[in-house]
């Protein structure tokens, strides 16, 4: 059972004690409003923090410390959750029963987190310049590397095109230009502001009680000088006039067709479960309409699927196809959407979609990572349902409700990435 503890104003610890696992996970996220002017800084900070602290001044000594803690892992955590961007650290470590007699891991891990978060290597009023410059280069490289994964690139280009006036159009990790402009002193000033005013969302799942976790973390938060500022609530998609079809050319073997749709139904809406069932039935998994028709019957693609960004009310469909099949594929996608709107939904399709969603929710509690993924983001995204309540809502969805949800879905923008010189 998930418990929620308030450690201080704006500092929430969620989690559960579960002895079934070999490892524990612990994540700390500082929550910011997604803003163009700070997205890059928020993305850069955890990478710089993981370069060194006073006690462990470089990568090698940090890794050696993690090795001593039985191969514990620690990584940067930067998420987009609706209109918010989170920045922080996430770690995983074995439960004490696998350590040598008398060794405990939680307390030293909490201590290491404290050292990394509060005692970074500094130069004057800023972070260590060499760390900042090197991580800026790495972040710029990884932003530029987005185009290496054509599917991810095409999906991101679609969202950037359709969300010009919405926070969803702001790149999650900032832009190369914004990263290049960061200097160690202003980055430190921004980080101090984050520590002071941002809501903090902590999640733990593992073998120790939540009160012990709170106790292990208390030195970290007692060190922080806090003046917490509330965040604005999540907002639905904000429309802006845009191109109905945007085409880009690249040296690729396979074209990508991405279509962006909007719906007023978000995860705060009473028809949310029906919308989720629609998305699953339409484009998720192997029994969905898109896979069964566009791939299996018509052989137009290998990969096709839809996604529902529930905090915003955006549905996307992406398919990897031959350029020559663009119009045919697009027409099929729209025809299958129309079938949903018209209620041409079989009982089998409805039940399969509901079962698929319910199975996914049932397994949330089977892995510490899945629990973190659900509970550390659900409340922030505006979703007020536990997996159990969510399952009940899905169970109650009818074919008429799915058709009604599909009826709200409207095509907004189409993005097409194709081979250079293709038709």
């Amino acid at each position: 059972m998930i418990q929620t503890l308030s450690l201080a104003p704006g500092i929430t610890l969620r989690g559960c004690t579960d002895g079934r696992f070999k490892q524990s996970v612990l994540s700390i996220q500082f929550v910011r409003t997604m803003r163009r002017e700070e997205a890059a800084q928020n993305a850069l900070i955890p990478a710089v923090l993981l370069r060194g602290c006073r006690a462990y001044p470089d990568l090698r000594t940090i890794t050696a410390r993690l090795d001593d803690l039985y191969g514990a892992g620690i990584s940067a955590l930067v998420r987009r959750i609706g209109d918010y961007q989170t920045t922080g650290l996430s770690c995983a470590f074995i439960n004490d029963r696998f350590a040598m007699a008398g060794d405990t891991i939680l307390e030293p891990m909490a201590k290491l987190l404290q050292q990394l978060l509060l005692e970074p290597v500094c130069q004057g009023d800023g972070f260590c310049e060499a760390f900042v410059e090197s991580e800026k280069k790495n972040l710029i490289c990884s932003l530029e590397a987005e185009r290496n994964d054509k599917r991810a690139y095409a999906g991101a280009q679609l969202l950037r095109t359709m969300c010009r006036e919405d926070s969803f159009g702001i790149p999650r990790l900032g832009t190369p230009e914004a990263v290049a402009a960061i200097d160690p002193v202003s980055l430190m000033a921004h980080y101090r502001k984050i520590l002071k005013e941002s809501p903090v969302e902590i999640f733990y799942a593992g073998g120790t009680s939540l009160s012990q976790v709170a106790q292990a973390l208390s030195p970290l938060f007692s060190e922080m000088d806090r003046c917490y500022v509330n965040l604005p609530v999540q907002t639905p998609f904000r429309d802006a006039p845009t191109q109905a079809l945007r085409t880009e050319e690249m040296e690729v073997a396979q074209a990508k067709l991405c279509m962006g749709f909007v719906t007023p139904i978000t995860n705060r809406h009473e028809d949310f479960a029906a919308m989720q069932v629609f998305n699953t039935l339409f484009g998720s998994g192997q029994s969905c309409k898109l896979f069964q028709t566009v791939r299996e019957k018509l052989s137009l693609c290998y990969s096709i699927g839809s996604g529902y960004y529930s905090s915003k009310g955006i549905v996307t469909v992406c398919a990897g196809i031959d350029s020559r099949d663009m119009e045919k594929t697009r027409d099929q996608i729209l025809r299958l959407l129309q079938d949903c709107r018209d209620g041409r939904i079989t009982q089998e399709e409805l039940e399969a979609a509901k079962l698929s969603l319910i199975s996914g929710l049932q397994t949330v509690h089977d892995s510490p990572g899945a629990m973190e993924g659900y509970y550390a983001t659900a409340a922030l995204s505006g979703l007020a349902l536990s997996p159990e309540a969510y399952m009940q809502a899905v169970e109650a969805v009818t074919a008429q409700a799915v058709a009604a949800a599909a009826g709200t879905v409207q095509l907004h923008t189409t993005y097409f990435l194709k081979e250079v010189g293709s038709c």
Partner: protein
Amino acid sequence: MLTAYPRLDTTLYRHRLENGLQVLINPRPGFTKTLAYFATGYGSVHNQFILDGQTHSVPAGIAHFLEHKLFELPDTDVTARLSALGAHVNAFTSYDMTAYYVLCTGHFYESLRLLLEFVSTPYFPEESVKRELGIIDQEIGMHADSPDSRVFENLMQAMYQKFPIRQPILGTSDSIRDITPENLTLCHRAFYDPSNMVLSIVGDVDPEQVLSVIRKVLGSETRTAGEKCREETEPVSCFQPRSLDKMEISMPTFLLGFKWGRLANSQESIRLEVIGDLASEALFGESSELYLSLYDQGLIDGSFGGGFEVADDRAMLVCGGDSDDPQAVFDAVLTQAEKLSQTGIDETAFLRMKRSALGRRIRDLDSFDSTCFRLCAYALSDFDYFTFPEIYDQVTREDVRQFLLALTDRSRWSISVIEPL
């Protein structure tokens, strides 16, 4: 037979059925999901085999094509039936293994029955085989645009002269056009006999009921299975020292590969894998002197990494990532291997590395997917995966030093680089 592994706080039920199928069940009381892998030790490199006394050569990519086509049964829509049970089904083909898996939160025995049934039933209507060509062509296109796939495939072609790992798992757009219902049936007969397969299950299930389902679907008879064969003699040295390619990417990406010799047996393979992973950690892992130095110089970033890999009876050490100067990284890795092979590794650092590697493997047991996969993959090599802590106990610093010494032979290294257009 149920074996307890106190160091891992887990158990394993193991049984070999009359038809030769190995069954492994890792009980997970209190968990909702159950995962089952049904796997054969047949992958893309096994394109030559002997069946009924005759040697057969089959087209590149057929193991993967067969994996796609097995999802059909004469009178049943497999995907729809499993979806109706709330089960998630999928499969993958590697160089030396094909696995089909089903993830359930209920109706496990019925889902298992369907999994066993569709994998063991060869049904390849001509029309359906033709239709699959279009789908796999698109999958080949998707891989052609992936720098990670291309840099690895190019490395294999540089390292190996004869070994069929030179050919992509998916085959090529040309080679898959030689695939027919007849040669699909032949491959199925050769490699999908229960005696060639493993079923591993992670979850809260009743072993007796599992065995009963298997007996009902697969029967108790064994048939003649295919015998893998390979005519080639693969040289010790790499075929070519380097491969250079260009793609629509943002910065150069590279892989270095060291060609290990042929592995004598599975025991050697597992031991070598542990030694190879520890040697990789000492040489270029995040706690190594080299990693810090290359990272500080900006020659590597967080994408850099690697380890020891086994494909069939071949093994290799592979590492790489993105870099503006792959050759400088290559030179530094070789120089450091020479240095470490002379100085050896400090005892404290060695023990720390072992503790860390062991801890990471234990944490990995929380993943149903990884556990099911490893149980299968190691069982196909007749090795009990859950005894890995004992392998770590046995490995010495000298083993690692000897491994590093082998890495100083430059003729067994290749580098594959992809540069931006």
